[in-house]
């Protein structure tokens, strides 16, 4: 009986899935067993139900037998529920009158006894009949869309995503926590495999972003909190005081000259110094000075005040305050980038004890024409040009025991680039790379690596280094060449460690605020590893760049553009449709205990303080059912998954 008291006419369609199901489950017997089951009007089987002829047959049988509900006994509903919902909808049946009985993943794939598996399949289908008998016809929940995007992070991925979304014609808020956009890419010297200058290809993009009429650039800002749901987010953004008005700052640099505070320069990876009032690098966007309050002597003019005194355009304002403001957006692109694993994890390579043992980004700065050595390869300790440079790969990567289990993906290529660039700058020097495997899966990548070996005579030694230590000014590397079976000891003037890429330190806190899903290593989790690689599991969030996992520049740009296209898809819809299989509250039964509020992972439920009952935000509710299971009074009943339905299903299974 359905809700209207009318008797239901159910059709059962049992799929063979080739031999996937049919080799273990006797599909014909299953179809036969259901023929006379109460409520079932028609039952049959077919070799591939999801194929065009299979779908057609369902359509025809619905019309011929005047069916009003359908059960497809086949694979998991995550695969083809949508397919068959579309089929029944074509025949004029409400899609929520369709159910999938999973007899593949939950039966034929996990059993081998044909007799028992067939009996189990029959039970599974019968239980679905009991469910369908009580299914309601449902309509999707509709909601509007704010056509405005938030992009978090101003590295290459964030810039690309922001530009693409803006070019689609939608407004973009680009939030960057640092004083300038540019990310790690602006720190790089040259890029593999073409060796074009990173700054030369990056700066035009930065300028384009700053001038785009649809992009609001918010540097030195941080996202405080996000509430709401897909299409309708509310974002609190914190503006950190810069103490310099970008519109008035003429970049004369007078303030920097008088500032007495000297601190380590992050842009140059600590290989040089900057002042407390500074511009991170000459091409910074926005082009303005920033006063780094953590290192300033103090804003009271009595303590210092030198910069303000010399600033002719009166751009410096010590009274600037932190501000928090709220914005509405419909989609959020998370492009918060990566950090390098710190060397203090690797005591066997000296930790951070030795000045001339560097990480890859430090070496990028040494190679860069705008770097601390003006592009001349000099070692930090004494400024000498190193004649022997050893590069060590997989530092902290591919180590399931003590460090990170994954491959950082880009190190093979950038190490080849480092060795090659070093040889170009120091032709009489020797570059040696210790590697485990050289991974060059990318367009023109392997050719690049071979060039390093053949033309630049970089010596590749297959084996992971065990120890790096310094005695006097000699750095000694203990490695092995597994190809010759020799333990190798080597003297070096400089060592470059290809440190593993890791999730950003501050990013972790941000991701918690966003309540966005991450994987075991802290990288953002995609909704589906194959089919939905740029969407988060959390609706309305999109992923771009290394926050999702290690990747190189072309891949980052491609992913950012894909994320932007997905944002475009979302914004192109008139309204959003949301699954109606949510868990409403029966206010008469609800005691207001609030247990369901605490178990809801989506923040969809809250206690109405006046009525003392729980209210449900239908859009936030993902229909997971946690609340329904926890509700002690039965007030929380999931649509088409009510307690009564579940009891009937259990009964059908126990009865056989």
């Amino acid at each position, binding site marked *: 009986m359905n809700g209207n008291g009318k008797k239901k006419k159910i059709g059962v369609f049992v799929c063979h899935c080739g031999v996937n199901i049919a080799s273990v489950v006797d599909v014909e017997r299953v179809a036969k067993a259901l023929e006379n089951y109460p409520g079932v009007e028609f039952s049959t089987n077919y070799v591939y139900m999801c194929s065009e002829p299979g779908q057609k047959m369902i359509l025809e049988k619905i019309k011929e037998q005047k069916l009003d509900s359908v059960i497809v006994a086949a694979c998991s509903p995550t695969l083809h529920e949508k397919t068959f919902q579309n089929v029944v909808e074509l025949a004029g049946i409400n899609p929520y009158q369709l159910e999938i009985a999973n007899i593949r993943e939950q039966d034929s794939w996990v059993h081998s006894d044909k007799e028992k598996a067939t009996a189990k399949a029959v039970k599974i289908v019968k239980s679905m009949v009991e469910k369908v008998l009580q299914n309601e016809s449902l309509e999707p929940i509709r909601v509007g869309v704010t056509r405005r995007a938030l992009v978090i992070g101003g590295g290459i991925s964030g810039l690309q995503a922001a530009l693409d979304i803006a070019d689609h014609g939608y407004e973009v808020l680009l939030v960057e926590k640092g004083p300038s956009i540019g990310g790690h890419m602006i720190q790089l010297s040259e890029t593999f495999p073409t060796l074009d200058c990173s700054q030369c290809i990056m700066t035009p993009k930065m300028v384009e972003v700053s001038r785009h009429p649809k992009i609001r650039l918010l540097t030195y800002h941080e996202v405080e909190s996000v509430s709401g749901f897909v299409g309708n987010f509310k974002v609190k953004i914190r503006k950190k005081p810069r103490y310099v008005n970008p519109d008035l700052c003429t970049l004369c640099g007078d303030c920097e000259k008088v500032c007495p505070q000297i601190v380590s320069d992050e842009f140059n990876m600590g290989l040089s110094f900057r002042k407390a009032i500074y511009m991170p690098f000459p091409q910074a966007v926005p082009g303005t000075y920033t006063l780094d309050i953590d290192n300033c002597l103090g804003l009271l003019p009595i303590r210092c005040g030198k910069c303000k005194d010399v600033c002719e355009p009166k751009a410096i304002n010590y009274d600037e305050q932190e501000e928090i403001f709220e914005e509405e957006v419909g989609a959020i692109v998370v492009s918060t980038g990566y950090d390098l694993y710190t060397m203090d994890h690797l005591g*066997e390579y000296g930790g951070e004890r030795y000045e001339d043992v560097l990480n890859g980004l430090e070496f990028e700065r040494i190679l860069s024409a705008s770097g601390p050595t003006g592009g001349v390869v000099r070692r930090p300790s004494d400024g000498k040009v190193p004649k022997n440079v050893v590069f060590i790969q997989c530092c902290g990567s591919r180590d399931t025991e003590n460090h990170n289990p994954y491959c950082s993906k880009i190190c093979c290529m950038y190490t080849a680039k480092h060795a090659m660039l070093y040889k170009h700058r120091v032709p009489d020097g020797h570059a040696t790379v210790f590697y485990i495997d050289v991974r060059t899966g990318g367009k023109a990548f392997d050719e690049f690596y071979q060039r390093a070996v053949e033309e630049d005579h970089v010596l590749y030694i297959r084996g992971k280094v065990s120890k790096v230590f310094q*005695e006097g000014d000699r750095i*000694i590397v203990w490695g092995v060449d597994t190809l010759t079976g020799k333990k190798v000891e080597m003297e070096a003037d400089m060592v470059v460690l290809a440190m593993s890429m890791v999730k950003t330190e501050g990013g972790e806190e941000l991701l918690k605020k966003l309540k966005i899903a991450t994987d075991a290593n802290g990288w953002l989790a995609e909704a589906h590893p194959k089919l939905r690689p740029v969407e988060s599991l959390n609706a309305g969030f999109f992923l771009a760049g290394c926050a999702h996992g290690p990747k190189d520049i072309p891949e980052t740009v491609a992913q950012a553009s894909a994320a932007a296209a997905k944002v475009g898809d979302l914004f192109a819809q008139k309204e959003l449709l949301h699954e109606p299989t949510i868990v409403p509250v029966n206010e008469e039964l609800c005691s207001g205990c609030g247990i369901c509020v605490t178990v809801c992972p989506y923040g969809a439920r809250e206690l109405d303080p006046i009525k003392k009952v729980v209210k449900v935000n239908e859009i936030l509710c993902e229909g997971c059912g946690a609340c329904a299971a926890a509700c002690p009074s039965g007030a929380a009943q999931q649509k088409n998954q009510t307690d009564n339905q579940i009891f009937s299903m259990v009964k059908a299974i126990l009865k056989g």
Partner: protein
Amino acid sequence: MKLHYYPGCTLKEKTTNLDDSTRAAMEVLGYELVEPENWTCCGAEFPLTEEKIVGLAAPTRILRQVELEGGDKVVTTCAFCFNVLKRTNEALLKDPLKHKRINAYLRDDIKIDPLTKKKTTDFAEYHETVWVLHLMEFIKYQIGYDKVKSHIKRDLANLKVAPYYGCRLLRPAGEVGIDIPDDPHIFEEFLENIGCEVVDFPFKQECCGSYISVSLPDAASEASYQILRSARYCGADMLALSCPLCYYNLDRRQDRIKERFFDFTGMPILFFTQLLALALGVDEKVLGLDQHYYDPRPVLSKMHKTEVVS
């Protein structure tokens, strides 16, 4: 205060200087060291395969004796004994089945009552209540460096000491280890706090050759040579350590190292407890400084003779 202390075989015979200096220093700090009754050899090597599980019986018996005598912790100075006792304790804790098997072995122990001369076999099981500590850990975590400092009588600031950990205090990683295997600090902290100048050198956690010095002496000589060469190169006057076997390889065998490596210049090797005792003002005569192959006394004479007022 009474404290259970397991010296191990070598300390009773070949390196009494380690035993004597430990006792003297701990007495100054207010501890009376008590040895578990009827202790035996710990086995020196922790058995690495399940088939040799019977090797756990001896160290368990020692721990059980401490437990029977009401001790909740036992300290050692010998790195080998520390390694075996601690790993045994951990292994039993981690694997209840192993614990049961070993306890079954212990049940066969026979005790002769000294009064009645009767055999009794009702021996207790070991219940995993003893905490195995290396003396350096005990000093850091139980006594505290501040208290040690307040007892210092001699200024060792002129001694450039390289701390040598060797293997057994640090590895296997995750099972034993008084500090992080590749970035240890506890020995340096200890030396700093008793007033020495610490010399960091990159061979501090390399192997000295261990028992290979008997089966393949030349291979061990090379390993020991590298350690002493590096310590010397980094400016150390002496090497401090806690293992009697490392002491044998690095001190007693210096004559054989010299035979193989002509540029080798020797170096005095001291036990960390000897330095501790010196700092605490213990009479030098107690410390067995005359037992060393390389006489440390000339280098030690660099110490200020004046007593510090604390």
